[in-house]
Every structure is written in C-alpha cells, then in structure tokens.
C-alpha cells in the first residue's frame, strides 16, 4: 500500500492563527497519492485538505480497529468518497472515482496512515515553523 501526498506551495497562510476549520477545508491543500496493489485511488485535484484527510483516515482506522464494519471518507468539495470495508483482518478499499476493489491487511492500513500523518506533520513544520506550535495542527496531526 502506498499512501502519500503532494502539498501545494502556500506563502499566504498565517500558520500561527490557523484554526481546525481552516485545516479541514481551506489550508494545506494538495493531492492524494493512494495505491493498493494495482488499484489506484489517487486524486490529483489540488484542493484536497491534507491535514483533514490525515485526521479523517486516522479516525477511520480507529473505528475499524474498534469493530466498525465499514467506514467511508467523504471529500470536502465533492461527493467523491473512499470506502474501507472490513473483511476479517483485512480491509476492502474502493472509491467512487477509481475502478476496482483492493484488499489489504488492516494493520498495513494503520501503519500507512500513521506514516502519512507523521510525514505531513514533519513537512508542515519544516515549511511553516509556526505550524509546530499551532494547537489545531497538533490536535489533528498529533504532537511531534
């Protein structure tokens, strides 16, 4: 499973005052790179709020690990979605915009999402040092 992102350049955001709503909808935008096996669920729309996606995917993993049979991630600016359906210890991944269904172990999804969050947090901290001290960033991506 390959879960990665491309973060847009951003020189306008004041990262000291960014709110959770900003992170959920308006800042740290970019593309999703998401492959499971030979299935491609990437979305190169450029407007995807990546901190929101990282936090939402982490929430989805928590729910699946907690026994939820199915969780669906909804993109913020369209009705597109990515669905995670549990099948024993595995997860079936599908989307509204990509073809096919992929199967992967839940622990692999969990590890990939954790890595995604950590890499995104590191890159944001590097690009925007004030992000490291922002409460909303810490809440959604975890403390460094």
């Amino acid at each position, binding site marked *: 499973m390959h879960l990665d992102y491309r973060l847009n350049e951003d020189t306008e955001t004041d990262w000291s005052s960014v709110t959770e*709503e900003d992170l959920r909808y308006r800042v740290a935008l970019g593309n999703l790179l998401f492959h499971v096996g030979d299935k491609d669920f990437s979305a190169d729309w450029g407007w995807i709020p990546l901190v929101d996606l990282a936090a939402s995917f982490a*929430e989805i993993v928590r729910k699946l690990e907690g026994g939820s049979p199915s969780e669906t991630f909804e993109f913020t600016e369209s009705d597109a979605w990515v669905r995670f359906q549990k099948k024993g210890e595995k997860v079936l991944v599908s989307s509204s915009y990509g073809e096919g269904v992929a199967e992967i172990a839940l622990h692999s999804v969990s590890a990939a999402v954790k890595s995604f969050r950590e890499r995104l947090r590191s890159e944001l901290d590097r690009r925007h040092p004030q992000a490291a001290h922002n409460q909303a960033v810490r809440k959604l991506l975890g403390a460094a």
Partner: protein
Amino acid sequence: MNLRLITALLLAFGLWLTADLSIAQSAGYGQVQTGTDQVTLTRWALQHIMARHWPDSTATGAGKFQAGITEASLRDMINEAVHNGRARRNTHGRSGTIYEYDFQRQIGTTIDGGPASRLRVVVSNRNEVITAFPF
C-alpha cells in the same frame, strides 16, 4: 408641545429608524433566513465556493454550478437546501452539519461533467456556511 419640538422629535425618530435599518442591512449581508435560525454566507465562504464551484472555476474533481449562477441565487439555493434538505452530522471529526437537497432540476454538473440536481451545504457550528456545491 410646540411645532418645533414635534418636528425635532419626528426627525430624531426618523434618524433612529434609518440607523437601525442600516445596521440590519449590513448585518443582513449574506445571511440566509432559515425560519427561526439563519446561516451566514460570509465573503470568505463565497470566495471559497466561487474558487472551486463557480462555472468558470478550473478546479478539477469538484462539482460546478450552472452558468448564470449569482450570489443571490446561490443564497436562495442554500436557503432552500438548509430549510428543506436532509441534515446529517459532519463526518469523521469534522464539526458542523451537512445539508443535502435535490432540486429536481439541473443546478450544475458533477465531477464527471454529468448533470447535477443536488446541493450539499456544509454549515459550521456557528451557523456559517463553510462550503456548498452541486453533485
């Protein structure tokens, strides 16, 4: 009470009315009446929506409003969707409420370019519109 005093009182009352009306007008900008509640469409939210969902927006993977959409007609559609649409909690830790309403006519295009008749409106816990788009 002499005529001058009455005139002065009427003038003062008129000025008070005018001042009150202007406050209502300025506060009313962008507000969408929803019965007892109202949601606010701020300038920021409007710009957010226009950048992604206006007919001339180049954003990919996002539904677009039909040509001819105006700020006023957007407000009307948001009003109708919030008033009559299906409401549900926002998902996966996002705060606020999602309203979805089917207008039974084309209001825009889907991300695939097909006709869209439904509107999704995301409203914050402060009753401010965050985003709205056809699907």
